[in-house]
């Protein structure tokens, strides 16, 4: 049993006073790649934000490496818990150079950025270019490279494929798997491209309207692809599918009539 890196129990989180995520329970272990799926507005980004501390937590608990993350924590302490969150917009500073962006990786005392260049040789030539002038793929590499420099215990990537040509993200995706395998980090991946994400993941959770509606092994979900489509449409669709354990339709199927 590998170490549990992230445990979330009954978490509710949101903005101002509205809870976007209402009740999420999930976990990620070391060396695992877990996909977080769901339609737009489901609360995936909010979930990641709640873990890394930029979104307000209304209820429930988050536990990282055995430490209960306090509810009123300062967002910037994320670096201390080995959590790296690569946000939807990549989180790069366009006014800074590639090198300067890399230098900002958390927990990078030495300031030595060589590892990132080893991982992404293409960045080496762009060392002193302003990050804003890079192409989408290059920016994603920079973001990932910076994240990896931090030697994270938990790596969270939000919509890595966003705005990237298929060729590029097909190249980048397997990296995520590689990271989990080689560094034993826990990886939480938010993706719109369901198939691509499931291909690399061990398990997956599906969010819809702030609720967790589906969860399971990636292989199972890939096989029963239609479940995910239904999940995107909402819990009602799932209720009507007898293949889903615990749904009213399944109960009907078990004991028809009665």
């Amino acid at each position, binding site marked *: 049993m590998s170490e549990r890196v992230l445990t979330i129990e009954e978490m509710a989180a949101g903005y101002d006073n509205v*809870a976007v995520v209402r009740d999420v329970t999930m976990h990620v272990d070391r060396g695992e790649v877990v996909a977080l799926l769901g339609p737009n507005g489901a609360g995936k980004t909010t979930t990641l934000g709640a873990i890394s501390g930029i979104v307000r937590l209304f209820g429930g608990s988050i536990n990282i490496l055995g430490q209960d993350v306090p509810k009123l924590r300062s967002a910037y302490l994320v670096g201390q818990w080995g959590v790296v969150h690569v946000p939807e917009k990549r989180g790069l500073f366009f006014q800074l150079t590639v090198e300067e962006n890399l230098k900002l990786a958390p927990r990078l005392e030495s300031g030595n950025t060589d590892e990132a260049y080893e991982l992404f040789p293409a960045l080496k030539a762009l060392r002193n270019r302003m990050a804003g002038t890079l192409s989408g793929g290059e920016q994603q590499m920079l973001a990932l490279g910076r994240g990896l420099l931090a030697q994270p215990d938990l790596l969270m990537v939000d919509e890595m494929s966003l705005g990237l040509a298929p060729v590029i993200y097909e190249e980048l995706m397997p990296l995520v798997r590689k990271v989990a395998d080689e560094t034993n980090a826990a990886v939480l991946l938010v993706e719109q491209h369901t198939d691509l994400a499931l291909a690399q993941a061990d398990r997956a959770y599906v969010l819809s309207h702030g609720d967790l509606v589906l969860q399971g092994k990636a292989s199972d979900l890939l*096989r029963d692809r239609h479940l995910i489509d239904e999940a995107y449409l909402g819990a009602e669709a*799932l209720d009507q599918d007898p293949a889903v354990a615990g749904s009213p339709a399944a109960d009907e199927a078990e004991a028809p009539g009665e």
Partner: protein
Amino acid sequence: METYLQFMLLGLGSGVIFAGLALGLVLTYRASGVVNFAHGAIAMYSTYIFSSLVDDGQYPIPPLPNLLSMIEAVLGWFGIQVDLPDIPPFVQLGDPWSWPMALIGALATAGLLGFLFHYLVFRPLRYQPPLSKVVASVGLMLMLQAAIVVRFSNRPRNVAGLLPQDGVDVLGTTVPADRFYLLAAILVATALLYLVFQRTKFGIKTRAAAENEQFATLLGISADRIAAVNWILAGILAGLVGILAAPITGLNPLNMTLFIIPALGAALVARFQSFWIAVWVGLAIGAGQSLLQIMEIRLPWIPDINLSQGLPLVVIAVAMMARGQVLPSRGAIERGRLPMALPTRIRPRLMTFWILFAAAILIWAPFVWRQATINTLIGAVLALSLIVVTGFSGHISLAQLSLAGIAAFMLSSLATDAGWPFPLAPIFAALVATGFGIVIGVPALRVRGASLAIITLAAGVAIEVFLFKSDGWFAGDSTRHVADPSLFGIEFGPNSPFFFGDGKVPSPAFGLFVLFMFTLAFVAVIRLRQSMLGEQMLALRANERAAAAAGVNVTSIKLAAFGIASFLAGIGGTLTAYKFGTFNMASFGVLGSLSVFAFSYLGGIATVSGSLYAGSLFPESIGTLAFEKLFFPLGRYEAYLAGLFLIVTTLVQPEGIDVFDRRERRRIGWGFVLLWRKATGNPDRTKPDWVERIYPEPKHKKGMRPSPPATVDAATTHEDGGS
């Protein structure tokens, strides 16, 4: 040609001061997104600390709230006299200090001030719109300055020069050595800052946080801590400039505080981004001023209109306008709301009551209250001017009193010198002010927020320097005279006879005239608020692009806002002229504009009735007089408290006293209603409409408990996740 170089070299003294202050301004902005109008005041304050330690070994304590005094006072109301310890104004720290120790003490204070500014004021305001930050910064400036006036009075103080002062011969001219040392110090500081920002991790973090605070947070960078360190650095830098430059400028509460204006100009040209540009432009302004000054003296063909003082600032404004610069945004979410411009309507009966009440006071009350009421009403007219341009339209204008001054001047020229009759003279005078106001409004077409505030401030200084002081086409005495106004043989000035009342000055006739003018202005602004034009102004204030997309003619609405506001300011100016009879143009200076702005914001910048609250805060107005009668005369503390209140208002109630008053009255009223209902056994707990109407605060909605998620497991139908 060589002489011109010499002249420019002589401008090194002022240039270095402007450059040093500009450096700190850029540092502050890059680290926290705040344009700190009080930066020069920090320099001044630290220099006073230094002077006090070196001369007397004393450390001044600013006026602080003392709860023990409050207990004393409360007990005093019941006739119990107690004497509890006070906070001493100065702390004697032994003999006069040596200059190195005093320098350390003063710079430590400067750093502390920077930190307190950040932590107590600008950090809480970080998501607020620029208006709040400008106001808070102006408040801090007023407060620091007033604190020094309270503690040190105005006895001239000399600060021993820390740098060698012997003359150095350069290019055939003698320049004291300290200018060069100061220049070297500033250049070194600039280089250091540049290196820190470019090379060190701290600098990179600061730039990152400046670009996008949220992304920085994700990387474990605390934008807050970074800002705090930078504020402390900026404070120390300000202190250093002040102390080293004191022998050049002399030490008084006003100097450094005002030198911030050219420094702001220099920082503005640098877009508050580049240290080097800010420093070079600061030096250039100093050199340029010196050049113009000497040229004016040596070359008789140059017109004597104080070119040296006003021109650099005007040039900056033109340059900024031409480049159309906007201060770089910070990527932080601006969550705060602008002060709400509550809808308003005319309530004829209530208004009639108040008018009659005011008229009664203006006729029969003791003269002190009559004058106070007049001062309040005139102040309210000036406040209405700011309500239109800043409250409704969102443009920060720090030049309103200068516009009032133009009208006052024109009135005295037209009415007294040229014999124009009432009401032609005041109306035309106000129209002249309107013309100037529209010209000032032109930069607003391309520039917003703090940048516009800086430009209007510079414009106010330019008006003061070009028009009010010189022998130019506003020629003549700086003392102006205006006779009592009269129409059809009936006089209604402050000295005019009136059939009722006690026969003392000010005459009720004048009071009623002012009341009449105020009512006209008040109703006009209400109608403006209700009109399409008013809606368009508010739309522009909220979101200029969206408004333009919706078909609002941005240019004409903005200019209309400035035009209407300046006309109101002009009316205020003419009323002021009539009020004094004989007045000096110096009373319409830049500091006055800042005070008018402060009072207007305090009273309520976006609500029409806020003008009355604002008016009552002006000197010798109802608010201040009532306070004096109830408690004690404020005297020197008035400016200090005005500054303090201003800061508190931005933090806690940006709508000002007006809305605060309305809401608290309703809350207290609701409390009574509740009590009454409980007492009479009425179970109804719903709030009546008149309570709910003053913006209900959003309530905290708890998340709902949903059903458990479904789990897929191919092998079993085993339920996972309890219900």
